């Protein structure tokens, strides 16, 4: 089974989804990501779905729950690069992903994450 790689960049985690997500893959990603956030103490998660062309309600809900899990673990999630067709599908499915932050591309998503990071980090020197 495919696993989606999770890359660490400073205090952010970078997830790029390059294949069409199977339900199992999405569930595995949810597990891996929560473990990784816990292990690294990341404060930001960036999910790039620009290559994702097909979504169903399950994947939509997965995105929302990943974001919710990250928030509980004190990390901000930004979903970037959603394709128009995917956005329309999600809206038609009634999934507005409230509480998930979005950006047009990785660059802007990164800026959003760095801006929202807490100013006074105890371990800023790490």
């Amino acid at each position, binding site marked *: 089974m495919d696993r989606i790689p999770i890359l660490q960049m400073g205090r952010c985690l970078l997830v790029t989804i390059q294949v069409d997500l199977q339900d199992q893959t999405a569930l595995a990603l949810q597990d891996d990501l929560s473990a990784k956030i816990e292990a690294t103490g990341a404060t930001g998660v960036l999910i790039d779905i620009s290559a994702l062309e097909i979504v169903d309600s399950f994947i939509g809900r997965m995105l929302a729950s990943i974001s919710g899990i990250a928030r509980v673990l004190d990390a901000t999630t930004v*979903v970037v690069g*959603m*394709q128009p067709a995917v956005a329309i599908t999600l809206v038609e499915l009634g999934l507005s992903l409230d509480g998930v932050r979005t950006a047009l591309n990785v660059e802007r998503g990164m800026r959003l994450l760095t801006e929202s990071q807490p100013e006074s980090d105890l371990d800023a020197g790490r």
Partner: protein
Amino acid sequence: MTAHNASLLLPLIQADADSILAEWLTEFRSAASDRQAATEARAVLAAFTRGLEAGGGDVDFAAGPWEPLRDALAQLSASRAAQGSSSAETSRFVLALKKPLFQRLQQQIKDPVRLGDTLWWLTSIVDQAAQHTVGTYQSTREEIIRRQQQELLELSTPVVKLWDGVLAVPMIGTLDSARTQLVMEELLQRIVDSASELAIIDITGVPTVDTLVAQHLLKTVTAIRLMGADCIISGIRPQIAQTIVHLGIDLHGIVTKATLADALALALKRTGHVVSRPAGKA
């Protein structure tokens, strides 16, 4: 019997096609230009004759022998539809052929039973021809309407670039599902292509906003937000603002502005632009 009827009618038509045509046109008293009606009538009569020669009867109008007639009628109704004459007028044109043919049959056949039989045979054919004409006419008109609808759709949904990173859609006319869908797709695609962060939907040209329209707008806004851009709705007229509130439509979390100018000012502010006038030019 069909063959018998045809063999009776054919010589009659062939003998004086010209006077049949003349009587037909007099009967029709054409409102369209006479020359064109004459040409069309000649073509239809010729095709009718060919159908009789090929052994066409009253029960097989959809079959091979009548193909030339069907084509001629299709051409006739298409040109009538394009000219804008009514469907009643078009079918009357075909039905007017009955009288000259009936008169000739009446003169030819003395036996009333035989005459009734032949007339019934002929009237059945001409009626089917008229029906076919109206059917073709109708579908031609519908084709025209469909094309115009499509053109209207394409005309009425331009996505314009107002500023670097600011797109605008001036919506004109009633918003229905099909149009909203088209606008949404076009706008989202443009947002991706130009990496614009802000989209302004201007509804100055939308005459009424009901719950359905509001729902369409909300969907568009949500989709834009999902893509990672922001959306401002502008051009909300006072009456529409009242309607929105009275209907209890929740535009919570959506930025709305009264005019496109206000929306652009906000967009410029958000993208960090400052508009200033050089000193000395009031």
